[in-house]
């Protein structure tokens, strides 16, 4: 446990200004309303918080914890209950002092970052070199290191850049006992360019579809794939979000596409993937969007069934951004998209300024999705994962029914029961879908909704074989009990991994 001696030992590593056990300081780490099924916003208060400034300091802190059997939990930006202590007596390791971009290799297209360099910073520096990176849907205030090593990894540019978990090259990893493990070529002294081998890839222990969220050591550096950026090196953008004004470059096009039903929508996704077009592709739930952009309006129309039906007609659709490297490329992509929309009896809207400006830059910078917090203060995802397009469409259909029931009971905001935030990955390898529901955690009745919602979603996922466990992971151990027996007993194996590397659960996994 955390004793005065342990505290002093850690203090000697980081200096007194970088460690605290003052209740006020600690409670600022205990407020985590997001990404948890249980009602309430206070999680376990950490026993202390420590701010290491280097990999060496992280190692020393972890070794002190290991020696003294003190649990610890590292986070980067610390957004969400999964990044905080899952039990009492945990030391919170806040990595915000490790915020550097260590290297940008322009030719070999990767960037090496520490935990607290956020996506917006990294993107801004990459763009100066004609590069970009995949940013998760939670936005560019997140840590790309966390997305790659520890959390999930879906985002708007999945179609052209893939999923964060598959963008990982070399990794520097402080194991639960404080020893350093460097994955792939990095561990062999050959540089950061590859994260796999020699032989079996230890990335398999590091993470799967999701990561351990700080439950298996501390990641202090990662090389992440970067991708060609055909836009301006230093985009001139005015405005903060809804007022965005910028010149959308000629080689970009922004479209909204709508389809008559799930089936033709799925057809279009398959075809877009096969055609190898599109830079950004994202289904943005129409109800949630209106809530986010104009909550006043949405409040007014929730009891107007006709208007709601009209709006919901746009639920089978997505936002497609095309980025071209040449005029020929642009012509080809636009022409192909038009043909696909025609074949699938869809509607294609060529977005014009000023909305074009906003969609373009907020799509690239991933700066608008956070407005989803606007109506209720938070949201929850109970069903979702990544699989073949047809499967994710089925997820969405079931999700719609589940959500409508919660809306009818007044447990969540009426977002037209339009589901599915998501989009294609790796030019159609799989589709991502997630069942977003907006609620107000400050309303005692709604605060209880996520728990029930998570259960309803999980039951359906199991009974209907909806592909992957995905977001059920946030439901906690009970969810593992439900899913593991019908999903290759994965939890039995994960427990073995945890027991092997961290038998005393010192590296605290919040949702085990």
């Amino acid at each position: 446990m955390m004793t005065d001696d342990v505290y002093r030992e850690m203090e000697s590593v980081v200096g007194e200004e970088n460690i605290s056990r003052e209740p006020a300081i600690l409670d600022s780490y205990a407020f985590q309303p997001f990404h948890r099924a249980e009602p309430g916003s206070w999680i376990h208060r950490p026993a202390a918080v420590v701010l290491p400034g280097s990999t060496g300091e992280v190692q020393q802190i972890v070794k002190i914890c290991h020696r003294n059997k003190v649990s610890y939990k590292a986070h980067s930006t610390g957004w969400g209950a999964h990044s905080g202590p899952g039990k009492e007596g945990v030391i919170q390791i806040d990595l915000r002092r490790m915020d550097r971009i260590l290297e940008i290799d322009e030719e070999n297209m990767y960037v090496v970052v520490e935990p607290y360099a956020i996506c917006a910073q990294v993107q801004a520096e990459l763009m100066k070199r004609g590069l970009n990176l995949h940013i998760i849907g939670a936005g560019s205030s997140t840590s790309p290191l966390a997305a790659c090593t520890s959390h999930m990894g879906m985002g708007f540019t999945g179609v052209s850049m893939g999923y964060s978990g598959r963008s990982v090259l070399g990794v520097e990893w402080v194991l639960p006992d404080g020893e350093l493990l460097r994955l792939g070529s990095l561990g062999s002294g050959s540089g950061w360019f590859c994260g796999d081998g020699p032989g079996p890839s230890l990335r398999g222990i590091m993470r799967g579809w999701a990561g351990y969220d700080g439950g298996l050591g501390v990641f202090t550096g990662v090389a992440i794939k970067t991708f060609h950026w055909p836009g301006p090196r230093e985009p001139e953008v005015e405005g903060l979000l809804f007022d965005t004004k910028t010149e959308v470059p000629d080689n970009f096009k922004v479209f909204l596409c709508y389809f008559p039903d799930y089936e033709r929508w799925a057809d279009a996704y398959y075809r877009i993937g096969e055609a190898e077009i599109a830079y950004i592709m994202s289904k943005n739930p129409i109800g949630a969007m209106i809530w986010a952009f104009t909550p006043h309006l949405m409040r007014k129309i929730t009891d107007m069934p006709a208007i709601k039906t009209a709006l919901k007609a746009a639920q089978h659709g997505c936002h497609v951004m095309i980025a071209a490297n040449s005029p020929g490329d642009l012509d080809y992509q636009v022409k192909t998209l038009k043909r696909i929309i025609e074949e699938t009896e869809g509607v294609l809207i060529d977005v014009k300024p000023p909305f074009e400006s906003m969609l373009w830059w907020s799509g690239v910078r991933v700066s608008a999705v956070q407005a989803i917090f606007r109506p209720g203060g938070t949201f929850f995802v109970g069903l979702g994962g990544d699989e073949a397009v047809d499967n994710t469409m089925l997820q969405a259909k079931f999700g719609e029914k589940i959500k409508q029931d919660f809306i009818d009971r007044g447990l969540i905001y009426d977002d037209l029961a339009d589901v599915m935030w998501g989009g294609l990955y790796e030019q159609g390898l799989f589709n991502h879908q997630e069942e977003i529901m907006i609620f107000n955690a400050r309303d005692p009745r709604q605060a209880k909704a996520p728990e029930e919602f998570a259960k309803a979603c999980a039951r359906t996922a199991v009974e209907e074989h909806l592909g992957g466990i995905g977001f059920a992971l946030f439901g906690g151990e009970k969810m593992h009990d439900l899913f593991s027996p019908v999903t290759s007993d994965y939890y039995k194996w994960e427990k073995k991994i945890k027991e092997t590397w961290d038998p005393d659960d010192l590296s605290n996994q919040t949702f085990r």
Partner: protein
Amino acid sequence: MASESNAVGIQELIGIVGKDRVSTDRELLLKYGRGGGLVPDGEPVCVVYPRDSEDIQRIVKLANAVGLNLVPRSSSIPGALGGAVPSGEGVIVDLSEMREIIRLDRRNKVALIEPGVTFGQLQAAAAAEGLKVLMPLIPGASGSVLASYLEREPITIPKYHWDMTDPLLCIEVIFGTGDMFRTGGAAGPGTLEEQWASGAAQKNPMGPAHTDFAKLVQGGQGTMGIVTWASVKLELLPRARRLFFIQAEDLGELQGFIYKALRLRLGDEFLVLNNFSLASILRENRERIGAMTRKQSTWTLVFCVAGYEYFPQERIAFQENDIREITRAFGLEMKEEIPGASAETMMRLLDNTAGGTHWKSRYSGGCRDIFFLTTLDRVAAFIEVMNKSLVTADYPMEEMGIYIQPIQHGRACHLEFNLPYDPDDINETEKVNNLLLRASEELLEAGAFFSRPYGPWARMAYARCPDSVEALKKVKGIVDPGGVMNRGKLCFTEEVRT
């Protein structure tokens, strides 16, 4: 396996698969045990041919019960690098007869295949559906698709190589414990049939959940378990395609072009060969290969541009135009014909498996390969290291093949040196083996990343990453605590200490 228990083990194996699926034929065992001078000859005690996952599961459980060393292999032809040669005694688990294409799904561009499915077999089935198999450079006709993917052999189309696992997606594996596990989307919920009914197609290669066991099995040379089937990515068979060559005397002349084109994800097949490798692919025998080598520029970049379902010709046209602009910027020239090969010839070669003698062995009858991963900007330096080793070993420089395969969209490349030798000449064999060992050490010292450490490379490669060795041993302890899977390979040997 102690000799007395061999008989017991064999009897038990017969009990599982039947008498006709276990062989103790001496000739066959000798073939499977041949180490080729780089690894000691193994001592296979029998070869067992399982029919399905259930057989395999029972075999693995038996191995744990009686202490067998199981050496899985998917192809009937021995590999050259000793991955499937038993270290000491071992039971060869030959999966080549499990060769069903369980499912081929055009809509999702995916196939579910057993380990014995060959490139030729899958290619034919895929083509019938308008799909294409992602292949390494001209693989052997009987080569197992699954073995190739499990061993992370590079494919020739870097734009389809997103992650190192590609084109492998989900696997069913029988771990060394005898437990069956399915990875990624295949894990569940639901049986395969139930998943198909819900529109799933085993396309998500990650997980399930927080761990990625496919990544731990891949690259494992059969030390973690036996893969019984896998879903693999297929791509569209182009409606139209053109192939171009760009030749240069100096690799540096090509480097900027390669980086630029791959960054823009232009081109489909995209690879670089030196004159000797190119000649070995184009010609059948030593004399003609020698003559062809002399006719070629030192380096040839081969790439295709393709069009698919939508406006294929227009796609080719704009890509060709864009690439041509890049070539101009770098002072290069795209050609559709080089000495001894037209675009059509080359395309045909790239699209097919190797017929007859493998192209690497055409010059001298045998070939030793050294391959590793690096980045393109460091290739020239490694070639220099290799050339010095050739001089020291008195090996003719002009007879070394070099193959550079960009992977992961061009972020890295597989660099391969091919050293032809006459396997019937003991002196030459020894000489090339010594060259391989010495050069490998020197390349490693210079920073080469031997990500697939077969045979003698295991000791060298793992000596450089003791932290990885310790972690891998822990993984092995979880999935194969009884140590029944392909003993003595990779770092799972006394030789490699943490």
